């Protein structure tokens, strides 16, 4: 892995493929001799040092399956600490890759030796391994011989046997992991040689056979099959005496050395020779060892799908899937449960096996095992549960002792039927086993399971001297006892945490596994892909089991977002939407343990079900999860850890270029160092690129939170500089990233960059109308700038103030601008003061102060600036005067403010700048918002709309200012046209204040139309966006609106308490008459009087005047207070107007109505009738049915009242 400091991209295309690998002739892997790999040209590759060859061999023996990284380490570097061992392994892997694929460019993906969680694999075809080819040839030859085609058998075996170059894996034969493979390959070879000899015999080449068999017997004298073959060959050669002598040699050998007699077959053969029997059944029956069912290397048949074995499919699959509730409460494990159900059903047919459930810690293996246990119990099977214990604290055979005791307690079968020939070892088809069986059959009668467990615990008391035999006897007793037990009731043995099992237990499992496919006993074992401790026995056992019939392995995978949603539903948190499930998936990577931990944390921090996406994102990494992740990280090489930490600073998605540039390490080395992280599942490779992604957000967060603040800051600085240097994408796209990284590095010397990028990013966000982001970037800039000079800080504060103003955060804006004014005043920067102070003089619909509030400080700042302004600064003067006009609106100096605003307009008109003019006109419209200046205001709004190049927001504001004129005059068609245009423009502007105001205008129109549902919807919409601002008013507006919507439907008492409460506040003066009305509607006239006593009946001469005076008029007509005559004096002149509150929110019918009521109250029936009729006519003309029926009711009331009083004798005056 030779990379220079500048070894970043070499210009090779990302998807570039070397000319190596599959296109060229394939590599040839040879293990029938010393380990060799030949490339396509036949050249033998240099496989490097012994350890490196051992790594390759391990991968080869498991190809094409993944060998977990931790397994490799446990087998080859068990004495080394994991982190340095992982580094060494990675170095070898890298070099092997270069050897196997020399033409691959360093940054194209490896295609022979690949990384795949949880480790590495050799992606090769079985044909590329000599042992596989040999194994298949041996089988074919055997089949040909059995089919009576000896020539074919011989023809096949010739070249196959030529593949052998010596002892298998000669250079690694003493590695413990190679032993079983070596033994197996030797066995196959012997079997193949035997087949060839049989073929020769069939072809009449008996002489050659005798020579060959004698040679083989030299290597392995105890094979009776070979002796039989020798005898037959000699007999065929008519060397009868020698044949009988061979029998004697064999008998002596077995008798002297093993104390055994020749097998019955051999004895029968001897008899046949003695009797000169030439029948084929006697002498000619070939005795050929049965070749193994699977090829060498163990990879011929992937164990993933148990259906590959036996007849476990068809009949039971269908009904099992549809059967009953499969493991209630287990989400996302349906395939596993279905398969387990199938395997449990197989037990009824006498078919058992070993079922391995593998998956990372916390993935839910135990839950699955629990489900399997209850499913087994439902099926009437006996379940025995056992757990392996970590460390050496437990006795040998511990899981089996637990299982046997459990099964014993479960109730032994009533009559322990003698299994006879159906015993677990069956009728030994291999001669060796047959002998052993004979011994066992003699003495063992099979005690009960508890006694056996005791024997396992206590140690073995058999007298046999040979430990291997003793072990066999013990294993066999367990096997027989279990088989007997299972023959009564099917048995499920659950072994939890098999990765911690002791070697003796594992050996016993392997022994049992060999025959379980004929016994109704299923062993379900949970196992982690990465053994925690040095467990060679485990990997051997798993390999051995994999080759056995009836063993299958299922991996438990992380949950998908949909499954997490199901999980939440099952956990009784159904109310949490899919967004939350997605957020949880993102943070946990679907690991149920992480998920559970997070939910536990969420439950403790957010009791109840009100958990949102932001809560999930805001949670700190739970301690338990952090520990798990830290432990996984600590097993990586230290340089890999460093790189991962740098990657964590980059983010969840890691751009490899940025990582390389930030760390100064070349691309190939980055790949090498990160590879163990990919192999262990901490990182994922992004498809089709170099980039990486953290498998869970939690992984990144755990790594990041492990860094000190100084480390983070420096790393962010490096990452920022890397992004700056790389210049990928358009400049705009990386501004936020640059602002982010430099911002977090500001304290270690990157403050200037942090500020300038944040300012740029803020400008960009503003241009894109992303005001909230703009605020964020201004805040970033200010944060980074903490200690900078006042003048520059002032500019940032003004930027923030403006952005906050636009998002509607008036309070925040004022704080920022106040600070800016203070700072600028302190350094005598008038320009900055003016800029900050005039922000609130921008184009808005309303004065951005709370109702009735004057910011005296801002007023004095503005006046101070005006007093010192030179005569030439016309524009500035216009802005200051306009702003001052707006600021003075809520105070006693309102009229003075109006004049300032008027002057501002004149100055602006003189400059010829339409935007300045629009701004000052808008200032005037607000400053002059009193009943007596209404016409001037509408003219000003009109003038605004006539200006060229008006920004959309300004146009909307101008229209909204003008629209009440149309409504008051009953020009509803004009009003509706204007409103439609505003709604259209609003969608483009995306400012909360504009959205609010347009929604209110529409809401008021809906009230007028009596469309109550729509009115409520629009008001809710308006209130929603209004609440995003910090401006005065959303609550009071909502309550007034709600009252009138109710009132329009003949109710209204409902909101009494709320309204009284709200109106108590001086700034909510506008709601006081509403509250009194509500009291009257509720029938509490005493309260209404008390409220009038308390509050008075003021109607300020501001934007609320018409609306408030209308309401007091309604109150007066019912209550007699305020004085109805006084109200009539106010209302009669504007009786023709329709009612509107400010620029919308609530609109009502004509004021003729209230005037009629007041006149009726004061007893002027004819005038009252005239106004009531006018009201009815107006409402009829405008097409407002609900108001029309109201007017008609009023007319009837006045007429009836008049008739009554007429009868009573004259009207009161």
């Amino acid at each position, binding site marked *: *892995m*030779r*990379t*220079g*400091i500048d070894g970043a991209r070499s210009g090779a295309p990302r998807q570039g493929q070397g000319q190596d690998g599959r296109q060229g002739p394939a590599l040839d892997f040879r293990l029938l001799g010393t380990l060799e790999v030949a490339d396509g*040209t036949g050249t*033998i*590759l*240099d496989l*490097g*040092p012994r350890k490196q060859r051992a790594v390759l061999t391990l991968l080869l023996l498991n190809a094409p399956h993944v060998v977990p990284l931790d397994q490799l380490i446990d087998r080859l570097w068990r004495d*080394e*600490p*994991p*982190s*340095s061992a992982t*580094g*060494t392994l*990675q*170095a*070898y892997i*890298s*070099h092997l890759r*270069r*050897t196997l694929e*020399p033409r691959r460019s360093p940054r194209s993906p490896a295609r022979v030796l690949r990384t795949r969680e949880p480790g590495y694999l050799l992606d090769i075809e079985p044909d590329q391994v000599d042992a596989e080819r040999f194994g298949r040839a041996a089988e074919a030859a055997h089949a040909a011989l059995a089919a009576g085609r000896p020539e074919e058998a011989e023809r096949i075996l010739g070249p196959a046997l030529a593949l052998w170059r010596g002892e298998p894996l000669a250079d690694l034969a003493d590695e413990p992991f190679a032993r079983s493979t070596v033994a197996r390959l030797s066995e196959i070879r012997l079997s193949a040689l035997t087949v060839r000899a049989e073929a020769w015999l069939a072809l009449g080449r008996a002489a050659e056979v005798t020579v060959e068999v004698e040679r083989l017997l030299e290597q392995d004298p105890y094979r009776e099959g070979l002796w039989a073959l020798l005898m037959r060959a000699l007999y065929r050669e008519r060397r009868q005496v020698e044949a009988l002598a061979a029998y004697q040699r064999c008998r002596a050998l077995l008798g002297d050395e093993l104390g055994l007699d020749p097998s019955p077959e051999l004895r029968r053969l001897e008899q046949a020779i003695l009797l000169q029997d030439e029948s084929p059944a006697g002498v000619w029956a070939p005795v050929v060892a049965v070749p193994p069912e699977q090829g060498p290397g163990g990879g011929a048949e992937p164990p993933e799908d148990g259906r590959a074995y036996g007849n476990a499919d068809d009949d039971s699959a269908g009904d099992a899937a549809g059967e009953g509730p499969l493991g209630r409460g287990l989400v996302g494990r349906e395939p596993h449960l279905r398969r387990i159900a199938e395997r449990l059903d197989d037990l009824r047919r006498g078919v058992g096996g070993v079922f391995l459930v593998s998956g990372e*810690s*916390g993935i839910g293996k135990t839950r699955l095992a629990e489900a399997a246990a209850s499913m087994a119990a439902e099926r009437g099977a006996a379940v025995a549960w056992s757990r392996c214990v*970590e*460390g050496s604290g437990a006795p040998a055979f511990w899981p089996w002792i637990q299982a046997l005791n459990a099964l014993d307690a479960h109730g032994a079968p009533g009559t322990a039927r003698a299994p006879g020939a159906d015993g677990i070892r069956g009728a030994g088809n291999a001669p060796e086993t047959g002998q052993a069986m004979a011994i066992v059959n003699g003495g063992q009668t099979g005690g009960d399971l508890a006694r056996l467990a005791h024997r396992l615990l206590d140690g073995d008391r058999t007298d046999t001297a040979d430990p291997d035999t003793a072990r066999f006897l013990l294993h066999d007793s367990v096997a027989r006892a279990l088989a007997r037990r299972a023959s009564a009731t099917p048995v499920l043995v659950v072994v939890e945490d098999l*990765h911690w099992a002791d070697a003796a237990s594992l050996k016993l499992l392997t022994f049992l596994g060999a025959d379980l496919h004929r016994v109704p006993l299923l062993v379900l074992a949970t196992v*982690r892909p990465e053994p925690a*401790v040095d467990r060679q026995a485990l990997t051997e056992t798993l390999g051995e089991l994999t080759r056995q019939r009836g063993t299958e392995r299922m991996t438990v995978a992380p949950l998908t977002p949909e499954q997490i949603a199901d999980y939440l539903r099952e956990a009784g948190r159904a109310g949490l939407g899919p967004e939350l499930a997605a957020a949880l998936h993102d943070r946990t990577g679907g690991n149920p*343990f992480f998920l559970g931990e997070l939910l536990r944390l969420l439950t403790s921090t957010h009791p109840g079900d009100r958990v949102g996406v932001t809560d999930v994102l805001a949670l700190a990494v739970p*301690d*338990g999860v952090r*520990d*798990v992740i830290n432990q996984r990280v600590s*097993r990586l*090489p*230290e*340089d890999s*850890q*460093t790189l991962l*930490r*740098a990657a964590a600073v980059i983010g969840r998605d890691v751009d490899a270029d940025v990582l390389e540039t*930030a*760390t*100064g390490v*070349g691309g190939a*080395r980055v790949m090498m160092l990160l590879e163990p992280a990919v192999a262990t599942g901490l990182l994922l490779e992004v498809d089709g690129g170099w980039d990486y992604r953290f498998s869970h957000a939690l992984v990144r967060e755990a790594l990041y939170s*492990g*860094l*000190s603040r*100084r*480390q983070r800051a*420096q790393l962010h*600085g*490096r990452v920022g500089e890397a992004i700056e240097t790389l210049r990928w994408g358009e400049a705009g796209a990386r501004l936020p990233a640059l602002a982010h990284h430099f911002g977090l590095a500001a304290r*270690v010397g990157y403050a200037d960059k942090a500020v300038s990028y944040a300012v740029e990013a803020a400008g960009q966000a503003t241009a894109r109308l992303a005001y909230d982001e703009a605020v964020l970037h201004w805040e970033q800039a200010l944060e980074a700038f903490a200690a900078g000079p006042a003048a520059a800080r002032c500019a940032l504060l003004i930027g923030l103030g403006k952005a906050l103003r636009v998002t509607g955060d008036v309070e925040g804006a004022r704080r920022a601008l106040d600070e800016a004014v203070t700072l600028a005043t302190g350094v005598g920067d008038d320009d900055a003061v003016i800029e900050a102070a005039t922000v609130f003089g921008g184009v808005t619909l309303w004065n951005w102060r709370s109702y009735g509030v004057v910011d005296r400080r801002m007023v004095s700042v503005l006046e101070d600036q005006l007093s010192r302004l030179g005569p030439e600064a016309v524009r500035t003067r216009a802005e200051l005067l306009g702003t001052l006009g707006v600021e003075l609106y809520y105070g006693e100096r309102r009229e003075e403010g109006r004049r300032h605003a008027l002057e501002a307009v004149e100055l602006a008109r003189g400059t010829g700048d339409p935007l300045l003019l629009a701004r000052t006109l808008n200032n005037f419209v607000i400053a002059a918002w009193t009943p007596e200046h209404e016409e001037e205001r509408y003219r000003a709004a009109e003038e605004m709309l006539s200006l060229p190049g008006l920004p959309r927001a300004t146009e909307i504001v101008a229209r909204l200012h003008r629209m009440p004129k149309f409504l008051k005059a009953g020009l509803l068609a004009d009003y509706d046209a204007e409103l439609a245009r505003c709604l259209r423009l609003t969608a483009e502007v995306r400012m909360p204040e504009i959205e609010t105001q347009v929604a209110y205008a529409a809401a008021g129109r809906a009230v007028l139309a009596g469309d109550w549902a729509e009115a409520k919807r629009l008001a809710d919409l308006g209130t929603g966006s209004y609440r995003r601002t910090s401006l005065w008013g959303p609550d009071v507006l909502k309550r007034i609106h709600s009252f009138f919507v109710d009132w329009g439907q003949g109710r209204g008492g409902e909101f009494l308490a709320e309204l009284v409460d709200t109106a108590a506040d001086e700034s909510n003066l506008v709601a006081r008459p509403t509250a009194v009305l509500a009291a009257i509607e509720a029938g509490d006239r005493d309260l209404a009087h008390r409220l009038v006593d308390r509050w008075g009946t003021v109607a300020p001469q501001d934007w609320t005047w018409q609306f408030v005076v209308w309401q007091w008029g309604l109150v007066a007509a019912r209550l007699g207070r305020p004085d109805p005559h006084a109200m009539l004096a106010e209302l009669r002149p504007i009786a023709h107007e329709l009612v509107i509150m400010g620029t919308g929110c609530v609109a009502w019918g004509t004021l003729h109505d209230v005037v009629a009521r007041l006149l009726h109250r004061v007893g002027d029936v004819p005038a009252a009738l005239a106004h009531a009729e006018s009201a009815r006519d107006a409402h009829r003309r405008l097409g407002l049915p609900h108001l029309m029926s109201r007017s008609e009711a009023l007319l009837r009331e006045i007429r009836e009242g008049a008739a009554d009083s007429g009868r009573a004798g004259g009207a009161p005056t």
Partner: protein
Amino acid sequence: MPPPSDNHQPPYAGDPGPPDPRRDPARVMPDVRPDARPRSADDPRAGSARAIAPAGTLLLREVPAHAGAPGARVIGPALEEALRVLPAARCRLYVLTDLALPAAAAPLAAALLETALFETALLDTGAPAETGVPGHVPRWALLRALAVAAPHRGRGLDRRLLDDLLMELRADGVRAVWFLPRPGDEDVSALLRSAGFTDGTGPGFPRGNERTYGYHEPEIRPWAAWLVREL
């Protein structure tokens, strides 16, 4: 041999340094850390002691070997000497940097290696390799210098650098690393011995390289007391 030190506080910035479980190399012979395997590594619920010290941010980098290279000062005169007698292509300069220090900060430690001539790899079988195969493998490397900058000594950084280095060379296919101790190299020798280097009087360099040696650097003699480690 430096005195064993328990002071793991780096002398800069007031920030605890990266956790370095290794003791002083002079004190530890085999590379075994009894505490390396957390006992409860597989119980996700087990609360193990969380590291209080911030995580490590040290990283090995290769830099071009020239007189003003980062790390040149740490290496000292050995760099100039090597550049005088060897083509730059055969010099490899590695530095141990801390990503949590400013980018311009001097490396914490550095090592200078000399690699063999690129062989057109003669393979074990003796058959000549296919010509034009890229990725020539230098079969051995010679450690010319290894040093830790003065302010960072006593934290076991020499061992960290050496381990990183050996991993790099191994990945590169280098089979053996040699070192010829000279007077004053006692510390490095002790470090190397603790990392599995042994006295190497066995097979030397391939003949071609040996000749190159004799020509360029007569004072290094193949029969001198070398330290060597197979990778």
